[in-house]
């Protein structure tokens, strides 16, 4: 029974106690994401300090997977450079089979520290739910568009 793999303790913890929840008064970047088919919503505020993501705030509603993924993502990218955050995004998408690439974790890469996000690997066995896990990341990609400015 793989449901226990899907609903790991850490996922339910992030779902029930989402990290970095709220809004920034003057965000440097913002994006709204939505999965129109299930109605899940994510809003991301970012504050930059040079090329570094200094602060992250998340709002949203949805299933345990999308909300836990958002919470974990917020934790993981806070303090990272934009480049490292993008790197992490690709690592995550590779792990989830959303993008081609190595799913394994190469500790030498700066964006490799998936941390709690590894708990989302169980979602891969539930293809319908992969979009849920990806929603915060797709929203982040939107927020980071044009950052750093070319």
């Amino acid at each position, binding site marked *: *029974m*793989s*449901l*226990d793999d*899907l*609903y790991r303790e850490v996922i*339910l913890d992030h779902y*029930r106690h989402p990290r970095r929840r709220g809004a920034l008064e003057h965000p440097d970047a913002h994006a709204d994401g939505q999965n129109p*088919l*299930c*109605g*899940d*919503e994510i809003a991301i505020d970012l504050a930059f300090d040079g090329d570094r993501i200094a602060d992250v705030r998340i709002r949203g*509603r*949805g*299933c*345990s*997977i999308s*909300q836990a993924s958002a919470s974990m993502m917020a934790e993981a990218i806070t303090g990272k450079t934009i480049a490292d955050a993008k790197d992490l995004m690709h690592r995550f998408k590779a792990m989830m089979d959303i993008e081609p690439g190595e799913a394994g974790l190469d500790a030498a890469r700066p964006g490799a520290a998936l941390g709690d996000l590894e708990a989302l690997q169980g979602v891969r066995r*539930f293809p*319908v*739910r992969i979009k*849920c896990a990806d929603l915060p990341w797709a929203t982040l990609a939107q927020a980071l568009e044009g950052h750093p400015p070319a």
Partner: protein
Amino acid sequence: MTDLSHLRADFPLLQREMNGRPLVYLDSAATTQKPLAVLEAMDRFYRRHNANVHRGAYALAQEATELYEGARAKVAAFVHAASAREIVFTRGTTSAINTVAFGWGLYHLRPGDRILLTTMEHHANVVPWQLVCRHTGAELIYLPFTADYQIDLEALPGLLDERVKVVGLSGMSNVLGTMPPVTAVAAAARAVGALTVVDAAQMTPHSPTDVQALGADFLAFGAHKMLGPTGIGALWGRLELLESMEPAEGGGEMIRDVGWNESTWADAPHRFEAGTPPIAEAVGFGAAVDYLSAVGMDEVHRHEAELTRYALERLGEVPGLTVYGPADVAQRGGAVSFTLADIHPHDLATILDQQGIAIRAGHHCAKPLHRLLGVPATARASFYVYNTREDVDALLPALAEARRLFGVS
């Protein structure tokens, strides 16, 4: 208790396993499974009688035309239309409502006019009217519902006056199960000169429909929610209204004459059927209403009412479970939406799916309604002729497992 379990053998898909369990299909409000009689009717059409309709002077085309128009007559009889000419075949319920919005609304609505909808409408009975309002300057107003999920008849007189030109309401809510008193609303609408458009997507499949008795002006429904194929639905309209309407789409078959700059239209219903229609699908639709008529729509309704009563009882046993919809089975149909503690409906659906149970989770194309309910999503179990008490029983351990996984006490 009515027992229709012998029907299950007619539905090949219900013999399937899902995730290692026998499939328990509880999503008929989204789409129903199809009996062999429907699949065979369509297959036979393609193997023996396929030709384009209305166009050929050869026998094969005549056969196809007779089967197509014969299906129209069957669907007309099923809803007690005055004549087959009152049935327009469309792509589905959504298309049927758009046909009214763009064929009647676009040409008759003006700034200051109002369209009255209920707050429990499916997007199919909201968005077409929003589009038409944008084009015409008419505005939408909404009839609320009461604490027991019935449309608020006391609020009706305050909203329904001569400014209202169209009243749109669902014969049964696909979320709440509510079955509003369509006849009373249609009579009130008529009294102020408004047309009544009934979204019968969830009504016609589940109980006898008599358009004469309803007193409405238009009725939209679709085949795939009543054992028929995808790709086809029907708009019933009063003939004189259909004859006064403009087509929403242009093309072949719907014309009387085509000039370089202007055309004249064929009579109803062909005026509204531009291009090659869904021919095999009409044949399948006809077979579906034959099947339902053989079961008997009163029987279908009784069976579902009993199943719904049983489901509400059993779901009432689950701690933390909230049902959205009327408690009184006499006033509701068999779509039962609920939430369980803080478990998101999507998670519920995944957990139930692992037990072979198919339920739907989400806003069910009724986002405004969900905003009123104060939840972004609900889980929904819905029933049809082939469902049994055992299907309802299967929900219980699965919901218990959800509570365990989420540590809900």
